[in-house]
């Protein structure tokens, strides 16, 4: 027992293994604030919670002010135009497979704490570019993040 296993096994093919999986499946809720935000997207609006105490607005949306630790119940509509704060281009999907290159950006909005990560496009897109949310046609929106198709350089 003094020798580590890795030195004793000379061929991994000789190891017996048992296949298994941790097969979890989930149905998530968006939450009180998330639901409000997503229903906004469905109507073509970016709605953000605004703290009645300190006046901060937040993205991603949340049901409480992280500054004051108080509940937030009021929402304001943002102009769908933001600014690219950072961007990158993905060539590999989340399982490590080669995928069609896609540009995504961190978009911030005037007066809002935080921002949204989403797809972005447009010739000459760079940090500082002004981008506008391009919504799907109303009939195709489902109240999900992808109701915004992408952000397009203005």
């Amino acid at each position, binding site marked *: 027992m003094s020798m580590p296993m890795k030195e004793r096994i000379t061929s991994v093919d000789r190891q017996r293994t048992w296949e*298994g999986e*941790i097969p979890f499946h*989930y149905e998530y*809720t968006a*939450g009180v604030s*998330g*639901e409000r935000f997503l229903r906004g997207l469905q109507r073509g609006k970016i709605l953000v919670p605004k703290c009645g105490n300190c006046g901060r607005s937040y993205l991603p949306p949340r049901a*409480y002010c992280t500054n004051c*630790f*108080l509940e937030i119940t009021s929402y304001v509509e943002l102009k769908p135009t933001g600014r690219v704060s950072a961007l990158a281009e993905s060539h590999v999907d989340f399982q490590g497979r080669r995928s069609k290159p896609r540009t995504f950006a961190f978009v911030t909005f005037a007066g809002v704490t935080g921002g949204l990560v989403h797809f972005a496009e447009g010739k000459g897109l760079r940090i500082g570019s002004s981008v506008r949310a391009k919504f799907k046609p109303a009939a195709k929106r489902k109240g999900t993040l992808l109701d915004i198709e992408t952000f397009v350089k203005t």
Partner: protein
Amino acid sequence: MRRVAVIGAGMTKFRRRMLETGRELSFEASRMALDSAGMEIKDVESVVMGTAPDAFDGIHMKGDYLMDGAGGTDKPYSRVYVGGGTGVFAPVAGWWHVASGLFDSCLVVGEEKMSPLRPHPQYAFWSIFDHTLERPLGVTLLWIFSLEMRRYMHVHGVTEEDIALVSVKNKGNAMDHPCAQLPARITVDDVMKSEPICLPVKRLDVSPTSDGAAAVMLVSEEVARKYTDDPVWVDGVGWNVDTQYWTNRDLYYPRYVEKAARMAYKMAKIDNPRKQIDFAEVYDPFDYKELHHLEGVLLADKGEAPKLTREGVTQRDGDLPVNPSGGLLGVGNPIAAAGTMKVCELFWQLRGEAGKRQVKKEVNRGLAQAWGDLLQVGTVITMRR
């Protein structure tokens, strides 16, 4: 070690399927605990989150995810975890944050959102079993509980009807809890006739799966005096973990719970628990578990708990009220939140703020206990006026 006081408590409703995210549940409970203490988050020096397997919420590393709902952002924040016993372990961790002198305050939050996992949260337990020696049988967690319940019945000559009395009592107690998920007036007969799950365990022997959160505010003596004339003191804490091989324990008696209780009793200078503890919130995910745990924490002799239950000693107006909250069987069982709910109940009972749930006798000291992992962790806290 410094004295540690509890000066606030809060909890959400416990429900089968909530719209609120785990973060939002954590916020609601935390906010209520702060309000109850008269504190703001800026007054809080540290935060401890207790939450059970990531597999329930379906968010990997959910301690991080839940953090800002518990007010932990930009503070010394940590998540603690000992399986199902986490809900009482988190306040124990909060206690050492303050008792050690490291912090003057610690907000402790227990959270669980079990509803996302489909088809049933029970599924999360499949992969805790040994992949070559247990899983091939198609084992479920209920197998162990059923074996344990049967073993307990066999050793002490306990009947299923005796055990059903616990479910009747706790679901009845929960009628007075505003957050309760499954309050009900039922009879022993209802329990006996409920659908078989894994016999001898039947539907009404089992607590529900739930979403919810609960929180308590722990502070040093100096801080406590600033906020209240009526603090409740944590005077004993203990925990213990038995072997993970459930085949290497005698299932009829939770000796790890006894060891956890003895650790807490030593600290609290309790040498006769039955005389020095006025009421108890012991972990009751199954009705037989209340009996098991009452014996484990030495509030009943081995095999005596069913008799105390039959004689009404453990009723809210009895000599030793047990689970006056309604317990997991009645209030609900969002794992870590359920344990912390029991600590909240100690606070409310000891302050005389339990409303319709207030136990009849005067109470000066209470015990809360939780249990979990693969049947082998015991966590205990005692609190007094």
